């Protein structure tokens, strides 16, 4: 039965949210225009009530969608396309934002939450700020409206509540319109990762927070309150900076842990599209602080705050319109919303620019020239450098847009970013990073007091000396020779030392002011961490055996990868590493199961335990238990030992997906305080192919007699007659005999149970394989006259895997820096919120 109600409810909520957003905007506008305070108050009440309705409607959409996903209503396109019945609850949550509609919804949800906060905290600004908010909400709601305007046949938005039969023209729906698939297509296994549960909400909260300063600047311009908007907007800018930064880094961390390109940042357009607004956001925070302290940089602050929001819209346009299709691996394809997105972006861009132009002459400016010895100069220069840094990334990312625009005016442009994106961007970004770090490091000295030439010299002497000493130690220790790396390490250390200097003096006076200094220390640490982890990452899985892994492979692959045979230790990066076999992952609970210990059932999602299975020393499954597993994932257990002691066990993963025609490798990381060893599978045995067995070798043995099976000592322990044999009907004349053979492996005994059958006077055999040893045993014949048995032995190549391992020195400095930066951001934010509260009380 199709559950029509919940979808209709959801769709009704979408329409209600759209209408109520417009109604709230109208009411706030009326309240602004009302001639007396009584009517103002009346309209304000109406507007607030309407916005509450709007927020409730947004919540209603979210709940409806969750119900559809959570109850597996596969008659709905959204549930069918992005989920299945096997997903755990927390991945069902990420299903919510897997589709574009869901991510718009997530964005709207945060706007609604922030809108409610603003409604009750911004007495003087409520009406104009909320008008901007509600208009943005109306635009977002229109993206998921899914309504075709009658008459002009214009489709507005794409609804997450469409039924499968409305989205697909599969013939089955003609035969049976009420057909409901029993299973969904599931969530992309790559996204079944805890970071993908928290990364999108964080990122979208950051997106949503950038609307606040934008709304304030528009309100300030509109109400001619050119100076007053900064105080309430600043804490929100800091909030946005912290959350957006955190979201970006979570994405980077996910990539580091899950993808095998070997790093945390790939300069993919999708990444760039959030990196650029974040840089400009940070620049705007700095100019806003400058203005608060010295009345300069007001116009610059306005322009930057507007730019941040427009860049966020632009990034949405880039990633959601399909325009990046040829340039990015993981951009979304067009939902037919590109026109709507374009209108959305242009509306706010043109409105903000028009407002700025109209009011430009009225905006107060400071006439005094900025001195080089003022803090403003350094902050302003730093902000400029940040913007240029963003511009250098924005420009190539926009090539597809530029090509299209030039195409419209008849110029045939086919620009594309170069193949090696990492080098292309990093080689230029590094210089900007150096400049920004030097400027902000120097700017720190002006934090405290007015400086002149002689004072500055005295203040700078000690920190500069400390920096130079540290630098000398670092370059001597790490043997840095490359000019850009030399300068980046200098700049990074400089900003750390000079900010620590400020931190020292600030903490004595007032601890709550420490945010800025902390944030800058964080940036310095991040730069140093990035320099070492990226600039000095080193391949450690070097093949020194002199034997190529395969002649099919290019030379550099043979050189930079290690072939590991099962249970044969090899040396790598000061460790003895040993491949211990393939593992699978139970669907619930942690730990891994040996593939040798289970056999597969007809249902690929279930296996049965061959024996009692221990995980981390605890009995988890008894022999014969059915275990639910994730069949797409195989883990390769690799032990790392140092001087005979186990240092780590790594489980790099491959994800096989025949439907997707390939395999995806995910790394596992050995984390040391000073370096990560990042290991991923670069080649493996094809699990679908039948292995090549060498010619069978027969030998005669007696019960209890030891013999050699491929260099392993083996013994035939027992022989028993079978009354029943699965898959074979045994008649009265027929005989089935099973031998139990123990083979002593390197670490544990293995058992093989080959079977010999005589059915209808015809002999037959069922061989038994020990995959870990690469041998197959067959009971070929029985000789009652001599009490001997003929055992056939076939061998194949032992199980193997090829890995690549990269050492990333001091990557923890990057994560530490990230943490310090976030702490700094949040401390600064709390301080500015307090400042704002004191003002509103007074």
């Amino acid at each position: 039965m199709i559950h029509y109600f919940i979808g209709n409810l959801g769709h009704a909520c979408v329409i209600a949210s759209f209408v109520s957003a417009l109604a709230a905007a109208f009411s706030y506008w009326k309240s602004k225009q009302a001639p007396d305070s009584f009517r103002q108050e009346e309209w304000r009440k109406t507007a607030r009530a309407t916005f509450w309705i709007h927020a409730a409607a947004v919540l209603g959409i979210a709940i409806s969608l969750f119900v559809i996903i959570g109850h597996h209503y596969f008659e709905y396109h959204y549930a069918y396309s992005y989920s299945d019945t096997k997903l755990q609850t927390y991945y069902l949550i990420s299903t919510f934002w897997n589709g574009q509609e869901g991510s718009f919804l997530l964005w709207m949800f945060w706007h609604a939450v922030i809108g409610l906060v603003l409604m009750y905290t911004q007495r003087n600004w409520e009406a104009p700020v909320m008008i901007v908010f509600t208009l943005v909400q109306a635009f977002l709601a229109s993206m998921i409206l899914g309504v075709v305007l009658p008459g002009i046949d214009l489709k507005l938005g794409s609804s997450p509540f469409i039924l499968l039969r409305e989205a697909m023209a599969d013939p089955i729906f003609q035969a049976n319109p009420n057909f409901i698939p029993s299973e969904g297509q599931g969530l992309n296994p790559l996204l079944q990762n805890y970071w993908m549960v928290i990364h999108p909400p964080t990122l979208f909260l950051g997106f949503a927070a950038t609307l606040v300063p934008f709304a304030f600047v528009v309100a300030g311009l509109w109400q001619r309150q050119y100076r007053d908007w900064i105080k309430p907007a600043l804490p929100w800018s800091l909030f946005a900076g912290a959350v957006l930064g955190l979201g970006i880094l979570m994405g980077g961390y996910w990539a580091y842990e899950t993808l095998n390109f070997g790093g945390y940042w790939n300069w993919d357009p999708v990444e760039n599209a959030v990196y650029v607004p974040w840089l400009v956001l940070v620049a705007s925070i700095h100019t806003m602080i400058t203005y608060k302290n010295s009345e300069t940089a007001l116009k610059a602050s306005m322009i930057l705050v507007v730019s941040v929001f427009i860049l966020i819209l632009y990034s949405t346009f880039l990633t959601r319109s399909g325009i990046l299709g040829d340039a990015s691996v993981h951009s979304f394809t067009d939902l037919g919303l590109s026109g709507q997105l374009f209108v959305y972006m242009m509306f706010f861009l043109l409105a903000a620019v028009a407002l700025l132009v109209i009011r430009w002459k009225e905006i107060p400016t400071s006439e005094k020239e900025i001195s080089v010895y003022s803090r403003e100069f350094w902050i302003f220069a730093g902000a400029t450098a940040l913007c240029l840094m963003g511009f250098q990334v924005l420009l190539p990312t926009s090539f597809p847009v530029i090509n299209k625009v030039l195409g419209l005016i008849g110029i045939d442009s086919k620009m594309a970013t170069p193949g090696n994106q990492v080098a292309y961007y990093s080689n230029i970004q590094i210089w900007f990073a150096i400049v920004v770090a030097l400027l902000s490091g120097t700017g720190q000295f002006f934090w405290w007091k007015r400086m002149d030439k002689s004072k500055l010299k005295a203040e700078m002497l000690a920190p500069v000396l400390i920096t130079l000493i540290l630098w000398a130690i670092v370059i001597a220790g790490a043997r840095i020779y490359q000019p850009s790396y030399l300068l980046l390490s200098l700049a990074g250390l400089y900003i750390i030392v000079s900010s620590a200097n400020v931190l020292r003096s600030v903490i004595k006076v007032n601890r709550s002011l420490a945010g800025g200094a902390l944030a800058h220390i964080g940036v310095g640490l991040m730069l140093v961490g990035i320099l070492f982890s990226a600039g000095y990452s080193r391949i450690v899985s070097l093949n020194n055996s002199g034997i190529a892994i395969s002649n099919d492979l290019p030379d550099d692959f043979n050189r930079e990868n290690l072939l590991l045979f099962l249970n044969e230790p090899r040396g790598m990066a000061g460790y003895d590493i040993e491949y211990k076999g393939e593992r699978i992952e139970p669907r619930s609970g942690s730990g891994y199961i040996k593939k040798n210990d289970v056999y597969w059932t007809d249902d690929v999602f279930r296996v049965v335990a061959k024996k009692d299975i221990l995980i981390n020393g605890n009995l988890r499954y008894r022999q014969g238990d059915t275990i639910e597993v994730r069949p797409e994932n195989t883990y390769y257990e690799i032990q790392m030992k140092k001087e005979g002691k186990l240092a780590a066990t790594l489980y790099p993963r491959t994800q096989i997906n025949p439907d997707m025609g390939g395999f995806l490798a995910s790394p596992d990381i050995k984390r040391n305080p000073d370096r990560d060893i990042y290991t991923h599978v670069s080649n493996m045995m094809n699990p679908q192919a039948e292995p090549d067995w060498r010619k069978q070798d027969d030998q005669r043995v007696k019960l209890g007699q030891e013999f050699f099976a491929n260099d392993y000592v083996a013994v035939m322990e027992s022989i028993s007659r079978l009354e029943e044999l699965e898959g074979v009907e045994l008649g009265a004349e027929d005989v089935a005999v099973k031998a139990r053979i123990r083979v002593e492996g390197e670490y544990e005994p293995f058992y093989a149970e080959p079977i010999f059958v005589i059915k209808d006077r015809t002999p037959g055999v069922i061989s038994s394989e020990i995959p870990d040893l690469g041998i197959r045993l067959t009971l070929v014949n029985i000789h009652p006259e001599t009490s001997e048995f003929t055992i056939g032995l076939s061998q194949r190549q032992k199980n193997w895997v090829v890995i690549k391992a990269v050492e990333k020195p001091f990557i923890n400095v990057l994560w530490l820096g990230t943490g310090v930066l976030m702490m700094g951001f949040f401390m600064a934010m709390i301080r500015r919120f307090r400042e704002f509260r004191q003002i509103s009380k007074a």
Partner: protein
Amino acid sequence: MKKSHIYIILVIGIAIAIIISTAGDASTYVNFDQAYQMAAAGNKASIHVVGELKKDEHGQVTGLEETPDHVSCTFILVDDQQKEQKVFYNQPIPPDMTKSEKVVVIGKYQNDLFIADKILLKCPSKYQEQKLKASL
């Protein structure tokens, strides 16, 4: 002239420098004939070619082969001039390859073989899929 004017001129100067260097280093989208000529002329830059995988009369992708060791693959790409070209990719067959509508290969010619350093796939979104999966 005020200091701020000098500052603005400086900033504009840097911006122009960025534009020039970015446009100068940019790669371009070309077809296979142009790419071949570029390689023949000694141009070593890596370039983008957009095309579709070769398909047989049943719409099945043909010519997509993996080396026995599972680590690299070759496929036949048809560019917008309908020229077929064998492409070598030093990676296993990427996920979603056979589903892709368009493939962008980034790399250069080595003799008559196009060596792709990187490939991008443009896949139809689930919205454009008009068939239910067989697993129903």
